[in-house]
């Protein structure tokens, strides 16, 4: 296609400098992801650690430690027990033996000799630490000298006993040397109880305190085995290396011990991995930065090298990346090119993690190892054949699944070029359980289970694995349809312990289980198991099914004469179903949950607040059906010209009057078509101008539902458009036409589209509508809803579903609610528009034009008097349809700021209190923030709800208390109350806002809210007297003519807001509606 003809080639000669620049810009990968690249560069700059300043003194300390260790006197082998006893007697230091401790009568001998090698490893040397890390550790490994080890030490924890003793000797020496300069304690390397290490935390000296740049770092002394000391052949992943049980009884089984083996292999590989990483660094310039990005990505998702953090941290990330740079392709070629940039490497690794689920399929680097598949039941496998190490040995199947899931979410975000990629990937903290899981359960076991398992992983691990397997079987059964998309188990991290104590016996600490629903499947109340057919295979399947589900399983006949094993659950909501199933299976198989407080379930607090029920849908359907009836009733009316008509008069005023005539006619026709069922009333709008819509028709059905009809005339829009464009018209008229046009479009164009879209989305996302209700409740509770349109709230919630990054769309009301709050807390509405791609095909150009529009608004109106929030959809790109009303911003800047502040407080609370949070706390309004509280008399408000066409309210008011007023009067006289044009409390507040728009900002929640909060405008206090006062002012005594003096013209009279007079006015307007006006500080 591009075979350039001769002519064209000629043209190409004249390439000038700009062309070259253009081409280079296009070729250097400056594409849609450029913003992301620039942002990550900035991120790398801001998290980079200034090693010289931050870890000042670390090098000196390391040298000193080396010196001390080298100076320790070697000693001849002694029996373990004796050596430990001596050490304890002399230095009061315990040896941190792993569990089970060596037997008293055992005859292993332990000795001490100078380490074969000292080496500083980890992110301190690779300089990939960042400022926002939780803790900064400098790792120093000491290679145990070969002479104190024996080849057979790989068996039955013997190496680990020797290692523990070796560490204790070093600890003793260092404690003597460092004294009070540093705090020494034991900790477990990555939460692995086999490998205690010594942590040295320098005591902060005064000089360091002054210099804030210095971090609290600690040095970890890690003893390790010499590379290649143990016979490699014996240390294959399937080996069984612990053959004795706890009590020393020979353990007959030859169960593989992959965790033990991997730990042992890892002990010998410190230096070879150091080499691998160094090589990668040398080979690939961007390697370090890619590691830092990985560290941040993992850290924000709660991942870390520690077993309790999922066992996949910076080290694992770096090694994986290094391995992919070395090989990884089937033919041993490098999977990744060394010339990639850091963001490209990051994306590539995310891509790799998102397609490789090593909990389900072993991932092998190097020669294919066939027997890995069989070992998968012990945990995920990420096997480095060269060094024989399963890099994922610290991970559980759940953390591998979670990592996989996060990588998939991140990848889908990276594929979405329109969304903000940077913040969800690197900035947002996404490890708060309430944001991530729909149900969180805690298992609290008092009794420690007896069996520790052969693999020396501890009881917590043992329990976690069992719980996970059972829950996975129960909740993620693919045959029946996965109820849960993700099951995660979180154990608690093990703390450090002092040198003088035994490592705490690994007691069972609470397990936290997080479950992410599939909202459709989780709502299923009947599970259909395998069909009970005659074939042997079917029989076996049924047998297995029954074995797992026990009594719960029963045979049922379904349509098309299939008979199946079936489970019937009694709960109705997804949450309750999940809880029911969990409690059932855990109780059945593990006998957990027998005691009252063994399982605690969290996450249902929010929906319970509103008592959201699945049956609510039915109610909504009734309303929808009623609307259908109305539509049909209107369509069935004869002689009603219901098409778009060209006969509308060419005058706005006339159009409005014609509409009234129409409404009167429709009302009459409807009533005569169904005289017993329908009552209609034409109501007048509270309109200011003749050109506005003037009337509506209330249609009341005898059966309950009522509707309000307004008439849409196309001509009205074009007439208004013409007025807006008419440059000869007066400014105020054009302004008015603009406002009317906006109202028109909102009511007749945008609102129907919006309603339709939200209702379709409600079917697409089952959790959407309960979330919207919850969020509206939150706005109500904080008295914000008076300032917000419901459509805005709906769109804000919808945004969380349409752009759910870094997660997937929320699958329950509570995650939806929490993430909406998170969004509101983070949304910088001053500079960011909220853009919803409601069409699914919004182009980048459309988006950027929306952003440009916001910028333009901010330029014209920097104080945000007219436009504050900017919410655009594909159908409504103007961005202000739902955030301005009658030319006023809704909400104003003050209120929008308050919304953000409240959302921030709420998310902070959620983060700090975690799952224990009492959700009601999020809905408690802080009344003390308001200057004035107007308490409405709910009885009086209620009494205003009913009015009658024939009763004059004034007379009625006077006749109150007379005995003629019976409760059953309505029925007897056949009087029917008029419909309510607008809720009286709302109307009252609207009048107050209109009268006191300047000095007071009012706050009120939903219809039932009987307390109006108000805040004095701080910008309206004392001022000079002018004829046009913005509100009621009183003269300031004594401060008259303060700035006057020499020339008489400078005389100024000060006045200040007459707050009491204003409140007294409000009391007069409200009269019996107001119980009390409460003033802060009074």
């Amino acid at each position, binding site marked *: 296609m591009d075979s350039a003809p001769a002519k064209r080639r000629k043209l190409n000669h004249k390439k000038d400098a700009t062309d070259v620049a253009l*081409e280079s810009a296009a070729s250097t990968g400056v594409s849609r992801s450029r913003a992301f690249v620039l942002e990550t560069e900035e991120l790398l700059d801001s998290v980079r650690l200034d090693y010289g300043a931050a870890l000042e003194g670390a090098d000196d300390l390391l040298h000193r430690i080396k010196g001390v260790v080298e100076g320790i006197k070697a000693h001849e082998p002694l029996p373990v027990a004796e050596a430990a006893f001596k050490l304890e007697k002399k230095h009061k230091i315990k040896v941190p033996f792993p569990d089970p401790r060596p037997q008293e009568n055992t005859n292993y001998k332990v000795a001490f000799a100078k380490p074969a090698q000292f080496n500083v490893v980890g992110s301190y040397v690779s300089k990939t630490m960042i400022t926002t890390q939780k803790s900064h550790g400098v790792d120093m490994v000491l290679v145990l000298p070969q002479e104190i080890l024996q080849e057979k030490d790989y068996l039955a924890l013997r190496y680990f006993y020797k290692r523990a003793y070796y560490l204790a000797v070093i600890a003793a020496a260092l404690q003597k040397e460092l004294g009070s300069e540093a705090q020494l304690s034991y900790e477990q390397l990555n939460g692995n109880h086999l490998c205690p290490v010594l942590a040295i935390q320098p005591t902060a000296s005064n000089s360091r305190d002054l210099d804030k740049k210095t971090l609290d770092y600690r040095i970890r002394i890690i003893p390790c085995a010499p590379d290649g000391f143990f016979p490699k052949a014996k240390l294959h992943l399937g080996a069984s290396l612990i053959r004795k049980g706890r009590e020393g009884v020979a353990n007959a089984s030859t169960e593989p011990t992959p965790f033990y083996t991997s730990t042992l292999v890892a002990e010998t590989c410190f230096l070879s991995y150091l080499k691998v990483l160094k090589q990668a660094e040398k080979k690939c310039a961007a390697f370090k930065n890619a590691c830092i990005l990985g560290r941040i990505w993992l850290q924000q998702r709660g991942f870390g090298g520690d077993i309790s953090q999922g066992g996949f941290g910076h080290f694992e990330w770096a090694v994986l990346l290094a391995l992919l740079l070395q090989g990884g392709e089937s033919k041993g070629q490098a999977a990744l090119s060394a010339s990639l940039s850091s963001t490209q490497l990051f994306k590539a690794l995310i891509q790799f993690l998102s397609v490789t689920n090593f909990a389900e399929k072993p991932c092998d680097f190097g020669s294919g190892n066939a027997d890995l598949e069989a070992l998968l039941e012990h945990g995920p496998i990420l096997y480095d054949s060269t060094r024989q190490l399963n890099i994922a040995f610290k991970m559980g199947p759940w953390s591998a699944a979670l990592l996989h899931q996060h990588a998939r979410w991140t990848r889908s975000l990276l594929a979405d070029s329109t969304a903000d990629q940077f913040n969800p990937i690197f900035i947002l903290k996404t490890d708060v359980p309430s944001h991530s899981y729909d149900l969180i359960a805690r298992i609290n076991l008092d009794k420690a289970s007896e069996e520790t398992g052969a693999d020396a992983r501890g009881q917590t691990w043992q329990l976690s694995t069992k719980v996970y397997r059972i829950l996975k079987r129960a909740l993620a059964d693919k045959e029946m349809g996965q109820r849960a998309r993700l099951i995660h188990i979180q154990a608690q991290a093990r703390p450090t312990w002092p040198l003088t104590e035994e490592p705490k016996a690994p007691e069972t600490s609470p397990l936290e289980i997080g479950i992410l629903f599939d909202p459709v499947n989780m709502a299923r109340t009947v599970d259909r198991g395998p069909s009970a057919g005659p074939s042997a295979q079917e029989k076996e399947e049924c047998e297995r099914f029954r074995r797992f589900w026990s009594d719960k399983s029963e045979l049922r006949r379904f349509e098309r004469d299939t008979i199946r094993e079936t489970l019937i659950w009694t709960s109705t909501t997804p949450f309750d179903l999940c809880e029911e199933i969990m409690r059932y299976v855990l109780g059945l198989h593990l006998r957990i949950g027998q005691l009252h407080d063994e399982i605690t379930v969290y996450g249902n607090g929010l929906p319970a607040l509103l008592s959201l029920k699945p049956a609510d849908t039915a109610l909504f359907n009734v309303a929808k059906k009623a609307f259908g009836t109305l539509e049909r009733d209107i369509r069935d009316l004869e002689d009603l010209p219901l098409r778009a008509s060209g006969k509308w008069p060419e005058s706005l005023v006339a159009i409005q*009057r014609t509409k*009234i005539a129409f409404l009167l006619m429709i009302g009459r026709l409807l009533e005569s078509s169904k005289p017993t069922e329908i009552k209609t009333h034409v109501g007048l709008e509270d309109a200011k101008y003749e050109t506005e819509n003037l009337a509506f028709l209330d249609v009341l059905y005898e059966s309950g539902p009522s509707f309000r009809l307004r008439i849409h005339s196309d001509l009205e829009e074009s007439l208004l458009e013409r007025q807006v464009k008419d440059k000869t018209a007066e400014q105020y008229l054009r302004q008015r036409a603009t406002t009317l046009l906006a109202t028109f479009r909102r009511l007749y164009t945008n609102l129907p589209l919006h309603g339709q879209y939200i209702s379709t989305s409600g079917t697409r996302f089952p959790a959407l509508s309960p979330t919207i209700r919850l969020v509206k409740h939150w706005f109500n509770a904080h008295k914000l809803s008076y300032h917000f349109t419901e459509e805005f709230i709906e769109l804000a919630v919808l945004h969380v579903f349409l752009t759910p990054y870094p997660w997937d769309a929320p699958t329950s009301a509570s995650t939806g609610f929490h993430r909406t709050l998170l969004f509101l807390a983070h949304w910088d509405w001053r500079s960011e528009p909220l853009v919803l791609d409601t069409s699914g095909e919004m182009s980048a150009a459309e988006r950027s034009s929306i952003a440009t529009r916001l910028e333009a608004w901010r330029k014209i109106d920097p104080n945000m008097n007219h436009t504050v929030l900017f919410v655009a959809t594909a159908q409504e790109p103007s961005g202000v349809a739902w955030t301005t009303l009658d030319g006023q911003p809704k909400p104003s800047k003050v209120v929008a700021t308050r919304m953000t502040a409240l959302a921030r407080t709420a998310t902070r609370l959620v983060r700090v209190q975690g799952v224990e949070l009492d959700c009601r706390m999020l809905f408690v309004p802080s009344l003390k923030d308001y200057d004035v509280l107007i308490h409405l008399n709910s009885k009086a408000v209620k009494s205003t709800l009913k*009015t009658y066409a024939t009763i004059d309210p004034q007379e009625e008011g006077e006749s109150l208390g007379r005995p003629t007023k019976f409760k059953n009067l309505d029925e007897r006289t056949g009087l029917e109350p008029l419909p309510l044009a607008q809720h009286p409390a709302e*109307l009252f507040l609207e009048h107050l806002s209109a009268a006191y728009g300047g000095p007071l900002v009012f706050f009120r929640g939903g219809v039932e809210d009987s307390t109006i909060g108000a805040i004095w405008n701080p910008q309206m206090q004392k001022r000079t007297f002018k004829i046009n006062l913005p*509100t009621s002012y009183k003269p300031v005594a004594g401060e008259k003519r303060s700035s006057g003096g020499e020339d008489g013209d400078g005389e100024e009279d000060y006045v200040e807001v007459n707050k009491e*007079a204003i409140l007294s006015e409000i009391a*007069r307007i409200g*009269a019996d509606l*107001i119980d009390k006006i409460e003033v802060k500080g009074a």
Partner: protein
Amino acid sequence: MPSVPAIIGDFSVLPVTVPPLPSFPKNVVHYLYVRRNNPKIPTATDARSLFLTNVPVDSTEVHLRALFASLVGAGRFESATFEDERKDAHSQSHSPIDVAHPAHVARPQQAHSKKRKREDEEVERARGEEAATRLPSTWTRPLRRSGSTAVVLLADEKSVEQVLKAIAKTHKTKKYPTWGDDNLPQGKVSPLGSVWLKAHNRLSYPDRQRLQASVDAFSALFARREQEAAEIAKRLRNEPDEDGFVTVTRGGRAAPASRTEAEEAKRKMLEKQEKKKEELTNFYRFQLRERKKAEQAELLKKFEDDRRKLEALRVKRGKFVPES
């Protein structure tokens, strides 16, 4: 209580005490500011009227009448016009019925000054007709904007003098007049509060016959106006204007073209042009080349934009640090 200045600028300060209410049990003083009325465009009654600012939100003519009666006795007060009402009057002078006149209709009417008198009569009659077309009000009583103004018309010039004197006196005696519904004649002012809101709801659903009558009156009036307008337009087709030009208007013998028709025609023309344009894009090679160039320039511009945005973000600190 420190003494309140009696005069601010050229306004006399008129303090008014407001009795306590159950929901706000406090004695409150409200301040009105009063001066002689001298608007920019003088009117005949300026000499005997007063200009008030900062009238209470719940003011009605009855309230002001009572207030002035307490100052100078009954019989001096004639009427009061509030800020919002004056604005209304202004907007009503623009006929609410904006029949789609051709833009030039107004001129010939003015030109024929002979008809002036007859037209005046017509206007009078039309006013009456328009009143019949008005929709019933939905409120028994309006509220004023806080801090708004009013003009009070008194019986004569002397009364103005007396009122100002009386105001000055209140500062000496410290006996301020009282505001409130309680000391107003019974039944003259409809109450606020729940009764007010209930009355509003009731008035919002007016009697069907009455509504129909008002709409009918309107349609009749509107039809006539439209007819008149059409006739004028028709007449204009053959009449030269003052510069001797005859305006050429589109439309058949029966009626001139309506504006919608004209717009429709314009839209069609534009569509045609658009279509032609579209057919010819990417037709010549130079067009392709130019487009490519434009795309590249766009790319470069976007790159610069991003850089600039980033710069702006950098200014806001803390944007690039991961949350902890």
